[in-house]
């Protein structure tokens, strides 16, 4: 079995976000980059499936050279090899076209992604790749069990979940509790250095949307503190000031 996991290289979830160049560029100053948390779930589940069923596991990132430490981390966690499509991942359609092209070339049985990237928050690349390749796409996936060629999945819906049965190959966007995040061990880190990381060039330059500029949300006003012995005052403020009761 061949598994492909697509990972993003994104600012750590605790990062302070700011922009430069007239609000047209993300300010990377002092920002730590990580594997997207949802992609990390997808990767963790892929490693488990590989251990249980035997498989080769490839990770793919559409990104520039600065993403390579993040890709090496995925190799340390348990991927066998990696593909970096050497391009700025500035648009969902562009990224989806790249992934679809290399996924088709590799003939994967299972393509796992995160439910969404935590920088762009599109939640769409998996669906686009599925449609381009004519494969089912399911997201957000909370559990994934394989039995031969058939998979049982659960998908989160508002206030509940669906149980889904589907045959390989398909594309899934993953989230917790599909697997526990894995921390690379020493052996993993050592072997990751010599695992193949193939840099390939992008195909085509089609985009769906282009960035105009970034913007920060309006600043929050000061908090009003209310004495714990006086909850009535809170109720009063919620009713007459905030007008939410």
């Amino acid at each position, binding site marked *: 079995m061949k598994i492909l996991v697509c990972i993003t290289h994104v600012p750590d979830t605790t990062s302070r*976000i700011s922009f430069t160049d007239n609000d047209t560029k993300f300010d990377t100053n002092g920002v730590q980059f990580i594997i997207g948390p949802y992609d990390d779930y997808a990767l963790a589940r892929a490693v488990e499936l590989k251990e249980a069923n035997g498989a080769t596991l490839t990770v793919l990132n559409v990104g520039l050279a600065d993403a390579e430490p993040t890709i090496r981390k995925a190799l340390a966690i348990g991927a066998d090899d990696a593909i970096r499509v050497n391009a700025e991942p500035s648009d969902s359609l562009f990224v989806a076209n790249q992934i679809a092209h290399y996924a088709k070339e590799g003939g994967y049985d299972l393509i796992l992604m995160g439910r969404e990237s935590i920088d762009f928050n599109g939640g769409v690349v998996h669906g686009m790749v599925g449609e381009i390749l004519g494969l089912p796409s399911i997201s957000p996936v909370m559990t994934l069990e394989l039995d031969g060629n058939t998979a049982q999945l659960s998908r989160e819906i508002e206030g509940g979940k669906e149980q889904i049965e589907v045959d390989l190959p398909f594309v899934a966007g993953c989230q917790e509790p599909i697997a526990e995040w894995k921390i690379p061990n020493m052996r993993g880190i050592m072997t990751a250095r010599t695992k193949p990381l193939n840099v390939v060039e992008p195909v085509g330059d089609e985009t769906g949307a282009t960035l105009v500029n970034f913007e920060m949300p309006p600043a929050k006003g000061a908090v009003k503190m209310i004495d714990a012995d006086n909850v009535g005052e809170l109720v009063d403020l919620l009713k007459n000031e905030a007008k939410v009761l």
Partner: protein
Amino acid sequence: MSVLVFVESAEGKIKKTSLEAVAYGAKMSDEVVVVAFGNVASDELESTGKYGANKVLHISDDSYNDGVIQAYATAIAQAMDQSGADALVMANSSLGTPVAARVAIKKGAGLVTNVSDLPDTSNGFEVKKSIYTGKAFATVKVDKAIKVLAIKKNAVELVEGSGSAAVEAFSPNAQDGDFATKITATKKAEGDVLLPEAEIVVSGGRGLKGPENWGMIEDLAKTLGAATGCSKPVSDMDWRPHHEHVGQTGVKVAPNLYIAVGISGAIQHLAGVNSSKNIVVINKDPEAPFFKAADYGIVGDAFEVLPKLTEAIKALK
């Protein structure tokens, strides 16, 4: 421009977030057609006219009762052809977003999800979306003639008018593979207010010590007609179901009022609540970071404050 709006329903009622999508479509164009699936009564469908829809294409074939992503995408693309739409609008949801992705490819459209504002058409078609999990916004220009937009809750104000939409039956032609994924069961939390749609949310964190103390949270929520939520460790420890977990890796909420009890306010939790209009924080630690993101705060023990608060609100009603 002519707009098609995909609306979702639950138990025969069109979801509020979908009505917002209709209202959003009506701000874009006078020609608004709705596509709806499943068992929804005609008068309910007609009522989309109050928010600006002219016509409803209703797909009542039983095979569409479940939200099968591929089948819905095919049907919606065909409904766009039928109505001559050059834009598709829907709510950002666990069904809307994955469906939008596939329709965008089918139609060669430009797709934007998490849209937070109406488009600006003074210079091409520009639209604002939420990024970095609510920490910032990006304005993007759609490069394609056909647009697909999935909108966030509260992107547009919902004002009820007086129109009525004409309902027409619509039968899509399913394509090979559309039903390759089989939905074998659906489990829904019953009776409760759905978290992503709720106007008021009461959330509890690790400060509540254990699942046996959630009665306090539920009492307050019931009194307010609110949905209940929680922090990630709370759902990780199985104190509460996973679908209640709010934050960066959980549900993003945008209620009028978010009440956080015994939650420290880690940045990953805040990422899921920063679109709330008003935030109340109850925490015994005056240094809890959540107070910095709050509108109203009480430093105190949840076990004492919560019952008093519930009583005070009951007295009001």
